[in-house]
């Protein structure tokens, strides 16, 4: 088991490095291949009309006058050891982990991302708890009573959940519960550590609107998998052994369903941790998604690069955790 964990962790680290290299290549190699000169590349980092001095400073700071592999090594080194940028009246320190420095806003990228992480993590984790509980429970009950009123109703609602975009459900929830009946009015993010109750109160509507979409998907997926599983021979055997139905469902039926659910859950959660753009926009949450949108709007490459790496990190991390959970859920994984 330990060897499995080490192997998967090492693979994840290698994957992260590869993703970093690919991302770095997209930002620094592709423009070169497309014919951009070092000056043009540097100009994009300054944004406004670049003075010759500023161009020289950017090229030196980012190493545009050096081979790409050295630039990448420098990028990784800065990530681990930090960097000093000389641009403007004073030198600026980019602290560890140095994800880059926005020359347009004169801000380090990582603190900006870091300050937004609690918002996105709160949103993603809270919504995930909701959708897993609601989705899986609904799916299981629907599968156990196929074509019942509950099943038909649940699947209809889940179809609506899948069909309705978040910018609709979110705006509807806001209208109803924030303005029409101000139960959750004046929404603004509060840190969990400052006031857990207020944190939850302010996140309920974003959680629900996000979970409504995902729980619908999970309910349909769970129902489908459970229907297949509950018709397997080993389920009949379990029943024949005299196991009570609850144990048959939970220990034998649901456990088999967990593997595909975990797979998709890891992907979904990882993607959301990289920024739930629409939900954050609808609820004016200043998370990673809103940060990414603003960075793209500003064409602020260091910020875009930073948020891309963070998003990739979360996807890889969540998939690593899923891989490790596989081992707990399914012993065959360890054997393989």
């Amino acid at each position: 088991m330990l060897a499995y964990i080490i192997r998967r962790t090492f693979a994840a680290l290698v994957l992260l490095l590869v993703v970093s290299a690919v991302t770095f290549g997209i930002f620094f190699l592709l423009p070169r291949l497309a014919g951009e000169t070092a000056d043009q590349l540097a100009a994009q980092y300054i944004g406004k009309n670049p003075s010759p001095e500023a161009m020289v400073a950017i090229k030196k700071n980012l190493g545009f006058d050096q081979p790409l592999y050295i630039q990448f090594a420098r990028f990784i080194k800065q990530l681990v050891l930090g960097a000093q940028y000389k641009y403007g009246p004073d030198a600026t320190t980019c602290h560890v982990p140095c994800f880059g420095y926005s020359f347009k806003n004169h801000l380090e990228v990582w603190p900006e991302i870091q300050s937004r992480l609690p918002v996105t993590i709160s949103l993603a984790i809270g919504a995930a708890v909701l959708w897993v509980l609601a989705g899986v429970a609904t799916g299981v009950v629907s599968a156990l009573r196929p074509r019942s009123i509950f099943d038909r109703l649940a699947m209809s609602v889940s179809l609506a959940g899948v069909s309705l975009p978040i910018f609709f459900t979110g705006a509807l929830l806001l209208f109803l519960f924030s303005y029409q009946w101000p139960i959750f009015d004046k929404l603004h993010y509060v840190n969990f550590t400052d006031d857990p109750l207020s944190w939850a109160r302010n996140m309920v509507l974003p959680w629900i609107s996000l979970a409504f979409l995902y729980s619908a998907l999970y309910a349909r997926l769970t129902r489908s998998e459970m229907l297949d599983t509950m018709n397997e021979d080993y389920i009949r055997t379990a029943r024949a052994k005299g196991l009570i139905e609850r144990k048959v469902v939970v220990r034998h039926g649901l456990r088999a369903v967990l593997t595909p659910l975990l797979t998709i859950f890891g992907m979904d959660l990882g993607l959301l941790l990289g920024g739930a753009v629409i939900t954050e926009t609808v609820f004016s949450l200043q998370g990673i998604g809103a940060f990414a949108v603003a960075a793209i709007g500003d064409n602020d490459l260091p910020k875009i690069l930073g948020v891309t790496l963070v998003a990739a990190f979360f996807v890889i991390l969540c998939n690593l955790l899923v891989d490790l959970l596989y081992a707990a859920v399914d012993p065959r994984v360890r054997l393989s």
Partner: protein
Amino acid sequence: MRRSRTLVLAAVAATAALVLSGCDSSKGGSAAPSGSAGAGGQDAATKGIVNASDHKGGTVTYEMKGTPDSLDPGNTYYAYIYNFSRLYARPLTTFAPGPGQDGNKLVPDLASGMGQVSADGLTWTYHLRSGLKYDDGTPISSKDVKYAVERSNFAPKVNSNGPTYFQELLVDNATPYQGPYDDKSPDGLKSIETPDDTTVVFHLKQPFADFDYLVSAPQTAPVPQPKDDGAGYVKHIVSSGSYKFQSYADGKEAVLVPNTNWDASTDPLRKQLADKIDLKMNIDQATIDQDLIAGNAQVDLVGGGVDPQTQAKILLDPKLKAKTDNAYGGRLVYMAINSHQAPFDNTDCRKAVQLAIDKVAVQTAEGGPIRGQIATSVLPPDIPGHADIAPFATAGNKGDASKAKDALKACGHPEGFKTTLIARTERKAEIAAATAIQSQLKTIGIEADIQQFPQGKYFSDYAGVPNFINSKGVGLMMMQWGADWPTGYGFLQQIVDGRAIKDSGNSNLSQLNDPAVNKLLDDAGSNADKAAREKDYAAIDKQVMDDAVIVPLTDFKVFLYRSDTATNLVSTSAFSGEYDYLNIGTTK
């Protein structure tokens, strides 16, 4: 002056009116009351102060779509920041609080009186009030005013957003002054003298009648040099106003709290009512509107008015409509034509655009007559010097494709051509207007590709950067402009003077450099005769229209919703019809 930033002037006016007309007005100070307190009703805040109150406490919440160009008073050019910045940055002069045109009255702020001008009109002297302090308790010196002007006008590599009037008007050093970040000499710009800690003297190249207006810009708000680290100053602005920064998170939020070192006896304008001022950025406009209606927020910082869908809802509900203010704000909505971008370097091609546009459709896209009257010239009707001219008049203002095609033939492109039209992402009405223009131009063969850019960087990185515009083939730019101060010079100079073209933060988007226009501006700026100046402004208006570089669309009208929980609301012409932000409090 300001880009759709008509804000600055009105704030002070509103404040004084509140002080004097409110129930405790006798305590208010020296500013003259110019409006009367009112309980409400449609357009009430354009005629007086609504919810006048000296109630202290609570949090005043400002919300804004997008982000500002900068909260640094020396690096901004949006009217709403001109307005808002006076909470933490006191310029030498500002505008007396008051509704509508009453808000255009100029009064001393950091200075103890208006400028003393020399007989030849070349020297302006200001004396600071005594007892002024920053939020850290250190005294404010006239040297800090000099430094503030130097950093904001002579260091475009660091602070590029604001206008550069001072750089254009002040006598330069023998060796051109390079700004305080590059030129570390103790004298700095020698044409600004500080003979003592409370006196600042400006030496001009030529007489300039509007100089008292010019020093109302936040660029004269003092900045202590040791605390200035260039572009990073926005993260730790030192306050000279009634509020100071408690926190600032770029693109997210700024929290201001009362400045305990601000002394009300040095300031007849400000009241320091709220316990906290919370500015929230990047809020969806529909959410802002809902929050205003629900009373959760007190002010929409940008002050451009409610969203189109909210407007429709309000207009259908008499109760909501009674809480709105609809007024001119000395703002022109227009489309700038890049005179350096072929084929728009040909006047006839520009004329083709002027003639093709259906201004009624554009007006509708912007929200209808309630959001602006159709404009036919550059100078708005509420700016002195305006004359009713319409060089490109078409029947019913609906455009004339036939005449436009004739102009296209004259410019050598009878089949039309392709160009790029840019607008600001956050401004739905602007995007809608651009879309309407796009379809109208298509009828005469001009294919305009619309590109959107964020308002916070529109001038520093995109529309306001001639190199960017020229290299990307941008021919048309959506624009909205309010006077920097309520005179023809304050409205026109930055958008039509060829010498005001900047590498970044440029407002002369057309890159017009017409010697006739420049000369008229010089004549008007130095002429002591008001009537003669206004005649010059009318002549400039006509000449710019003849150059056909600006397509006037509408004379903008704000349509603001008054939050029930906000006190001391007054819409002022000085800041494009926005509410004066100086003394807004809350009942919550």
